[in-house]
Structure formats: C-alpha cells, structure tokens
C-alpha cells in the first residue's frame, strides 16, 4: 500500500505535509512488512535539530534494529508518544497512528525533491 498523497524516501520513509512548513514522518507499509513485529521505537526529543540522513531514531523488531533517518533538514516539533507503549501501531497503521515525528522544515520547498508515490512504488518493487 503506497498512498498517492505522500512523498517518500529511499530509506522507506513517508513524508506528509501538515502545514506550510511542517511535515509528519513515518515508515512505509513495505518497511514494516520487512521488519516484522515492531517491539520498540526510539524517537528523538522535541527541539532536536536534524539534517538530511541524520539518525532520528531506531525501530526494533524481534530480530533486528533499523535506524530511522531524517528525510529533510528541520527541527523535531512533535513525536508520537503512543509508540512508547504501543510500538505495534507501526505495523497495524504505518501511515496513520504509527507515525513517528513531525518536523518544522528549514526549507519547505525541499519536500518537492522527495520521491512521489510512483517513483517509490518502483523502488519498493526492485528491493
């Protein structure tokens, strides 16, 4: 499942515009499927400044640990505290209740440079 309205990264993350200069970030359905049951999610603190490719946090499944990368330059303005107690939301609703963080972007125009749904579809199909 790859929603049309979202933007994507090569690291299997999705980005949703939530305001003029804010976005919400999570991992894709494909990513959660590959991970298996998510049992722990480590998210950054509010106010943390991040640059593209910087590690934002970690997702642990029963077997493995994966980094979550910042898709864009910005500041963490919200984090999904529900994941502390219910990491399984990443599996059950990756594009909804399983979201991870919201960022205030340094340059909102950078969102346009991310992959669109069809480009991500192609990437996921080749992976």
């Amino acid at each position: 499942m790859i929603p049309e309205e979202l933007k994507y990264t090569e690291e299997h993350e999705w980005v949703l515009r939530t305001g003029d200069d804010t976005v919400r970030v999570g991992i894709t359905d494909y990513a959660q499927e590959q991970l298996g049951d998510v049992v722990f999610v480590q998210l950054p603190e509010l106010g943390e400044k991040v640059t593209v490719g910087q590690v934002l946090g970690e997702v642990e499944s029963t077997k493995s640990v994966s980094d979550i990368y910042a898709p864009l330059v910005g500041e963490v303005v919200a984090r999904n505290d529900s994941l502390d107690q219910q990491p399984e939301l990443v599996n059950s609703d990756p594009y909804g209740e399983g979201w991870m963080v919201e960022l205030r972007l340094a340059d909102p125009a950078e969102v346009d440079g991310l992959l669109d749904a069809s480009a991500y579809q192609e990437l996921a199909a080749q992976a």
Partner: protein
Amino acid sequence: MDSRRTPLHAEHEALGAAFTDFAGWRMPLRYDSELAEHHAVRTAAGLFDLTHMGEILLSGPEAAAALDHALVGHVSAIGLGRARYTMICREDGGVIDDLIVYRTGEREYLVVANASNAAVVLDALVSRADGFDTTVVDASQDHALLAVQGPRSAEILGGLTPTDLDSVKYYASYPTEVAGKDVLLARTGYTGEDGFELFVAPADAPTVWQRLLEAGQPHGLRPAGLGCRDTLRLEAGMPLYGNELSAQRSPYSANLGRVVKLDKPGDFVGRAALAAIAESGVDSVLVGLTTPSRRAPRHGYPVLDADGAVIGEITSGALSPTLGHSVAMAYVTTANVEPGTKLSVDVRGRHEPVEVVPLPFYKRAN
C-alpha cells in the same frame, strides 16, 4: 548457490510465509506475526517445519560404542526408544555441536544435528567411527521434520495417531502412524513447552502438515516460523549453537557440564581437556539478564560492571513476548554471575541497566 527447499515449501508459500535463508535452506521466518506465533505456542500450539535439521544414522554392533567414543554423553546407556541431549566436542573441549541422539533400534541410533553443523558433525562422526563395526549414513534426505509444540499439542496429535500419547514420555520416541503415514514420533522440542517432533518421509510431509493444521485449527494452532522459535527457546533458556555454544567454549561455560559423562567407561574425544576444565573451572559463565525496557541487548554487545569495565558479552537477546520486557543471555566473568548482580549493556553507545537472573526466564506451569 540456490537455497534448498523443504518438501513443505509449497505449503509455506500458500500460507503467505516470509522466508529467510538459514544454513543453506530457504525456511519460513514467519507466516503473519512472530509475536502471535510465539503466543500461540505458549497458550495453544504451533506447527514448525524443521526439515533443515541434519539427521545421521548409525547402525551396527558397535554403533553405541562408536557414539560413546565420539560424543561426550553415555550413549550406550540410552534405553531403546529413549533419547538424550548431548554434545560433540573437539579434542580441546570446544563444542562442535549440540545434538539429540535417539535410540531407534537395538543397534541403531539417529543423531540430530543443527542445520548449520550437519556436514561438520557428519564428517566428525564418520572419522571418529573409523575402526568400529558400524555404518554412519547421512539420512537428512530421507527425513522431513515437523514439530507440534504447545500445551494443546497432545490433544491435537491424539486424534491423528493410534498411539496413546500418555505413553510417550519426555525424550522418548515411538515409531507410529500420524494421519496414516509412518512417523517416528518424539516428545522433544526447543520451545519450553510440551510438544512433539515428527520425523516423516519427505513425500509424506505435506499430508501430515495439512492434517495437523486442520486438526489444530479448533485448538488455536498456528503455523510458526523460525522467528518465534528463537524467542521461544531464549525464554526457555535453551542454548543456540553460534550464540551460546561455539568451538571456543566448553560445555562447562554454558552450565552444561552435566552432559559431559567423564565417568562413562572408556575414552572419548575431548575427555582429557574436558576433565582438566572440570577440575580448574572456567573464567566466564553463561547467565540470564533481564532489562526493565523493551530495548533488546543483542548478540555481541559488551556487558559492563558497575565501574564500567567490560566483563562479558551478550550471546542472544530479544524482547520476551511472554514477559513484556527484554531478556538476554551473556557470558560474564565468574565474579558477576550471582543473581541480583547489577550490570549494564552497551546498546549502541547507550548504557542500559540489566540484572543477573536465574535461567530459564520462562518455565511452563505443569
């Protein structure tokens, strides 16, 4: 090289399994959710394909004597129809593999080895049996191995076999029929639950698998992959070769000195070295660790004492689905093995508190 597929591959595909390559085999990792499969085994039952395990058959007048010489256990003392957990060690006492030996006949023994060590164990047994009146045959191609594990196992299996399962004791095996097919039925497992392992001819495996799935459905049985097998055995404190067991350590380090029968008659490979280790003791011992968090210490992470000095290493760790927090096994120096000892684990640069606890983490009620 392409991975080998088990005779149940089409069954796994039809069930929508995610696969993993393990020891040269294409094996089901999970069908749906590892956690759901784990809980099913703890509360109802799980059905596993373990065909990747290696089977080696020894037969002949001196089969038992050859195994007494080759392994650390007292194989000739195993009664007909019984089984024993044992190990094969190097001359220096390092563990080559852990094994289950089934006495399947007056002069016949079935040795079950880990998939990753099957070839090495076969070679070692062939060379160690040299001079004994026995044949050593790689019987892996002749066997598919299924396991039904969990508290409902006996109920599920009971309707498919003429054998009275109450008569099949723990670590015993019976030649019988399941779903009309010839099966060597053993009450063994690697999950910490009651359960059975079924050795069947590869051609019969799909029928037996399908019938078990059908019979198990009303009881909550799920097909279960290697993913949950690992968390199940970890909770049960059972060692895994390549993690807790290796050629670099003896059975004594793993608290499994009891499998080394120094007092059995005759010499065996590794005896001198193992006797010396039994006498002198070991520097590091396997312990259980629990964490208050869901973040798992993982294989290879350093274990630190209260002063921050590295005193050990994690061998296995995961979130325990049954307990709801992470657990791990680790080798730590003997000064740090007392239950209650506070240690920490370097989890990718972050020091997480852990506490030494007795193994196993989970023990079934009955």
